[in-house]
Each structure stands twice: as C-alpha cells, then as structure tokens.
C-alpha cells in the first residue's frame, strides 16, 4: 500500500473514531439541548469523513452527499429539534431508563460486539475505508441503545438520527457510498422523520402534558 493511501486510510479511521466518540458523549450527556448539539457535531464529522473519502477516491457524488449532510443534518434537523424543545418547554433533564455509568458500560460492550461481528468480514475488504465498518456498526447499535435508554421522544429522534449516521458511514465504508438516488431518498426520509417526530411530540405534550413516551403504556386497553 502506498504511503499516501495509508495516510488517507488512517485519516478516515480518525474521523470515524471521532464519530464514535460523539456517540459516547451523547450517551453521557444529561442535557437535552446538548444532545442535539452533539448530534450536529457528529454529523459535521460525518460530512468531513465523506468529503475525505470523496477526495481520496475521486468519487464526485460523495461530495454531493457530504454537502447534503451538512445542510440537512448539521443545520436543518438540529434547528427543528431545538425549536421543538423551546416551544414545548421540555425540561432539560433527560428521563433515563438506564443511568449514565451503566449506559456507558453497555455501549462499550456494544462496540466490542460490533468489532467481534465484523472481524471475519473486514480482512476480505480491499477499500481504504474498510476499518470503518466496525465503527459504523457500533454507532448503529449505540444509536439504537439510545432510543431504548432515554424516555423522551426527542432523544429517541436523536437516537434514530445517530443510527442513520451509522448507516451512512457504513455505506461509505463498505462501498464508497450508496448510489446518489438512494442517498437522496434516505435524506428525504430522515427529514420527513424529523418533521413527524416534531408533530408527534406536540401531540404527546398535548395529550399527556409530557413528552415521555413511557406514558404511552396507558394506551393499552
């Protein structure tokens, strides 16, 4: 492997690790608005990774995806979420099903699982981004875990978006990104999901005076 490629590969790995770190930060965060900020930061790192991959491989369409990431995930979605938080006057505290230390431990375990699972696959790859696959899987799992561990609808949205970031990273890592049309579709989906969660949170607040999804249990019979 030539030196420049090796350097590029290491840079991609660095960016991926920063993404993963953001995940841990989200799990360790007590304040709601900070979670949203961290998600914006993570998305910025994701855009950087994508741009890096585009630069190293010369696949122009990844630049486009990176630009979209910045517009939608760094600017638009965080703004929607902040607005929802402001308007609904959601208390800053996060409702937790699992406390932070335990959550971090579980996340650590999830990272190990992710690396364990991808172990047999990674050596088969030949792309310079291949190591990121394990990290992408870890991000997906942690995003999912966030959805379970936090009670408020907005944190669940953040968890979902983190998962989406993981999927994006995974696609970049495994195959230099999905075809542009798929990418566009996914961005559109994410945007719509953001809007829906916004509305859904309003309804939740109206009905239960809280955005805690645990209150939904009363809907059963």
């Amino acid at each position, binding site marked *: 492997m030539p030196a420049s490629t090796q350097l590029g590969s290491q840079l991609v790995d660095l960016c991926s690790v920063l993404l993963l770190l953001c995940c841990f930060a989200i799990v360790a965060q007590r304040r709601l608005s900070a979670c949203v900020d961290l998600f914006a930061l993570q998305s910025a790192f994701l855009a950087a990774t994508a741009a890096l991959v585009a630069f190293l491989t010369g696949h122009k369409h990844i630049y486009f995806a990176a630009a979209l990431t910045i517009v939608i995930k760094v600017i638009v979605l965080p703004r929607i979420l902040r607005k929802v938080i402001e308007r609904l006057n959601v208390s800053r505290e996060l409702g937790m099903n699992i406390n932070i230390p335990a959550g971090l431990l579980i996340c650590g375990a999830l990272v190990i699982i992710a690396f364990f699972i991808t172990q047999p696959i990674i050596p088969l790859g030949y792309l310079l981004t291949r190591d990121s696959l394990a990290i992408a899987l870890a991000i997906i799992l942690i995003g999912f875990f966030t959805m*379970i561990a936090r*009670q408020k609808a907005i944190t669940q949205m953040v968890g979902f978006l983190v998962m989406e970031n993981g999927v994006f990273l995974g696609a970049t890592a495994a195959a230099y990104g999905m075809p542009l049309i798929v990418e566009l579709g996914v961005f559109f989906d994410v945007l719509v999901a953001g809007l829906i969660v916004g509305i859904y949170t309003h309804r939740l607040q109206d009905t239960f005076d809280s955005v805690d999804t645990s209150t939904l249990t009363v809907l*059963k019979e």
Partner: protein
Amino acid sequence: MTVLLVGLLAIYIAGVILPPCFSGKARIQNLVAHGLAAAAGFAGMVLGLAGLLAPEPWTASVDSSIPFLSVAIRLDPLASFFVLTISVVGLAASIFALGYLAELYGRASIAAMGSLLNGFLLAMTLVVLADNGFFFLILWEVMSLLSYVLVVTEHEKPGVREAGLFYLIMTHVGTAFIILTFLIFFQETGSFSFEAFRHPDQQLPEGLRSIAFFTALIGFGAKAGIVPLHVWLPYAHPAAPSHVSALMSGVMIKTAIYGLIRVYFDFMGGEFPWWWGFTLLVAGTVSALLGVMYALMEHDLKSLLAFHSVENIGIILLGMGAGMIFHTYGLHELAALGLLAGLYHTINHAAFKALLFLGAGAVQFATHTRQIEEYGGLLRRMPWTGAFFLVGAVSIAALPPTNGFVSEWLVFQSLFLSFQLPTLFLKLMLPIAAAMLALTGALALACFAKAFGMSFLAQPRSSHARHATEVPRSMRVGMGFLAGLCIVLGLAPMLVVPLLDRVTAPLTGAAISSQVLALDGWVVAPVTVEFSSISTPVLAMLLVVAGALGLLIARLFGKALGARYYKTWGCGLNLTPRMEYTATGFAQPIKQVFETIYQPTVKLEQEFLEQSKYFIKHQRFESHIEPVFEKYLYRPVVALLLAAADRLRIIQAGSLHLYLTYIFVTLVLLLLWAG
C-alpha cells in the same frame, strides 16, 4: 373451444365491470349484471358439453413473472363436468335474481351485488379449470372471499356478521390445509404445475402420501361441509341472499368435491391404501346421517336446506368412498360405478338444492320470513312456486322418477356390490353404510314432508303467509328451468351416464357406460340386468298409469259410495290455524327417538289463575337441541386459543421502550449468531 372460453371469460368480466357504470339506475344495473351472468351461464353450459365430448383435453397456458405461477387452464372431462354444473346453476340463479332483487332497489347496491356475483361465478369456473397449483389457490381464495362478501350482504344484522366471520375463519383454515397439500406435492416435484403433480413418475413416499390424503380431506372438507367441519355451513348459507345461497349450496361446495377427486384420483392415482376409501365412507355416512337429522330439527327453511347440503355431500362421499375402495382392490369397473354415482349425485344435488333455495327465496320474497312455523297455505297463493318446490322436494327425498332417486339408487348399488371385495371387514362395512344411507333417505323424506307440508298446505299461520302472492315471472322461470332439469336428469340417465362415463373412465381406467345401460339405454343396470336394474322412464309411465287408474276407479265407484262434502270436524269449535300440525310437532317423534344425539332441552313454564289451576294465565314453552359439535369440539379449541392469547399478552406491555428492546435484542443476537 378457445372462442367459447374467451367469450365466457369476457362476458363474466364485463359483468363485473359494467354494472357500476350505470350509477343510480338500479333496474338497468340489475338487467346488465344478471343478464350477462345468464349469458355467461349459457356459454358455460355449451363449453362444458363441448369439453365433455372433446376427444382430447384442451389446454392453454401463459407464464407469468411470478415464480411458480403460470396462468394455466386445462379443460378435461372432469373440469368440463364441473363447468357445466356451475354454469347451469349460475344461469338459473341469475334469471331468478332479476326479479328477486327488484325488491331491493334503492335499499341496497344492486351494482355491487351484480358485480360480485359475476366475479364469484368467474372465480368458481376458473377454479375447476386451473391447471397450476398456485393459480388454483389464488382463485380458490378469490372465490372464498367473494362468497364471504356476498354472505354479509345484509351486514346490518349482527347474526349475518357473525355467520360471515365464522365462515371466513373456517374457509381459511381449510385453505391452509389445501396449501399444505400442494406444498407436499411441490416438495416432491419442484413445480406447482398440475401436469407435474399427475405425472406417473412422481409417486409420493407412502407416509407423505397419506398425510396429503388427510390434508386434502380436511382442506376441501371444510369447504364441502363434511362433519365435523360443517358447523359454519348452516349459518353462512342461509345468511346470504337466496340466489347466492343457491350458488353456494348448489355449486360452491361442489368445487371441494372437484378438488378431492382431482387430488385423489388424478394426482395420487394408482394404488390407494384401503383405509382411504374407508375413511371417506365413514365421513360420508356420518355427514349424511347427522346432516339430515339436524335438518329435521330446523324450522328456518333456509337453514334446513343448508343442513341438507351436509347430508348430500355425505351421499356424494359415499359414492366416492366406495369407488376408492373398489379401486384399491383392482375392481376398476366397480370403482368407475362408485365415482360415477357420486358425480351423478353431484349434478343432481346442484340442480335440486339450487331449486329449493330459489324456492325458499321466492317464499321469503312473498312472506318476508324464513320461519316454517309462520307459513302455511302457500300452495293456493303461490301455485307455481309450490309446484317447483314440490319437484325439488321429491328429488331431494329421492323418490322416483326424479333425478335424486337415480343417483341415490346408483350409490346404493355400488355399496351392495361390496360382496365382490376380498376382505370380510369391508364386505360388512359397505352394507352397513348402505343401511345408514337408507335411514338417511327415510329421514330426508320425513324432513321434506315437513318442509313442504307445513309451508304450502293447510291454512296460513300468520298474516305474512295470508298476504303472500305469486312471485314475478323471472323468478318462476329460474325455478322452472331447474325443476325441468331435475325431471330430465331423472328420466334420461341414458343421456347422462355416457357423459359421466367420459369423466370417470380416464380416472379409474374403466369405461362402463355400455355395460350400465342395457336395452338401448332404457334400463340402468350396474352389473347385469338380472342382478339389479331400474328404468325411470318406465317407472314414470307406471306412476302416470297408476295415478290415472286411481282416478278412474274413484270416478267409477266414488258416486256409488255416496261422497258428501263437508267442513272438517273441529270438535264443535271453529277451525283456526292454531289447531294445525306444526313443524315442531311434526319433528317431535323423531326428536324423541334420537334423544341421545340431539340432547334436547325442553322447558315449560306455566302460570295459573289463582282461582283454579285448570286455567292458565300464560305459559312459555322453550325447546332447543344441543349443537354438539360446537359445544364439545369448537368451543374448547376457541377457549384454548383465547387462553394462549391471554398468556402472550404479557409481552405486549404497551411500552415503546420495551418493543424497541425486543427489536434490539433480536438484532444483536442475530448478528452474533450469524458472526
């Protein structure tokens, strides 16, 4: 053939699409929908006859992009016979519907009913023509769903909704078993094409073959209404509008008979284990006997007819079962006879049951009730309907010279011929089945003496019956066509048997029509004229002669005896309809005799005047019989299912986080397992 088939399909499809185009004009919708259905019925009759007479089966197939599915059609004699049966009844029912639905203008959607009816007839016709398992299952499902929608036409009544749901569940249980049957064949042949299923090289392993036998029996049995899978039938068939009931009872349950014959004789031909036929024989005997016994206790005219469908399916199965047993022992000619008897009864039952359901519909049209207890004296008010109903009643009671008699007689003969079997057990069992069939026939006669007598004779028991008038002409035409058919099928076995022989010969490997029809076809003799033979035309002539003779004697000697006309003596009281024999009263002795089966509950509450206990202030009589199968077979199963569902509800906590956790844990476990 191609032109006929394409024309037939085109008319039905037009019948589905066109009626809704005339929105707001109920009369035109009715004319278009049922006119097209009748035209298609006529085309179907021609197609069926052409298919029966064709020397070679006619096939066509179009492959589709869906794996294993090809739109394949095969018009062999068996399929042709069923197309003929469906089309005949479809024709009569559509003509009947023209008048029958006039009452509903403005109250129900005629366009929807007409479209659904055409779709239903189309699906049934294609079911018997399908030559691909996948295609067959799709059509079968379409047929079941459309008939469900037709059953719940009057969905504003809660009873109808319940009946519909019951039907829907049972028919899907049945479909599941049919899918299983085809999957067993698919596993062995790697194809869903019927051609591959029937290929002689393909022989299922013995164990698998027997499993397929049972899955087919349960799957098709649920549709046919074989006891104990019949429970939905007496609810669902009467709930539908009468012309639909006629189609469901007359032909839809016959598609199940078609399925059974197709699977057993066509796909699994060759050696049957002896107990297959025996199983059918037992199922047939039980269905026939219990069907007629429950019919006797039923005082809702259409439910009574529905129970009789169970009985007649039993009789058809007796013929088929005997055929299979003979087939096992290589007695191919007798096998052909049994199957032929079953098929003969199939078309006969289609004709007279449809006729009776149309008759019941006509009576309901005129009186707005289905309770026999509220009828009476209808013959004077509705002479045509009464006459047609009588023809149907005589046919179903298997009295000569009508069609029911011929086919039941043939079933009897094939059962009696069991003395040619090598095993003692079966030699004993077949005559026992014949004895049970005899009992069934006697009870059916009693039942229709009740149904006809209590409905049409004596004086009206309610104002409904008193104000009844004859039904419109189209309804009479529909009934008259079937009544004529009942008589023709009875008087002309020499025309029917050769056609049926073309169906059974390829399936059993023996052509018997020349043997069965002796003396230029005027005599039907299963083995030899000496052993047993019968001739309905001669019987009919004898009946006419005897009747004329009776009249003549009465005319000659009646005067001499001094006839005096006077009112019926009523112990000095004026006669009122309340003194008439009721349907309940008529059935009472039989209820007493078969108490163990019916498990009747009788309650009488009386309140007397204080002055004397000889004067009753008011009294309340209650009598009902136990629905044994529902109580001991179905309710425990339903209770078990509900209990299991209750247990499973623990995991349905309603918590979003819990559901997410389920997904998460599953995902991680699957990933670990795959890694």
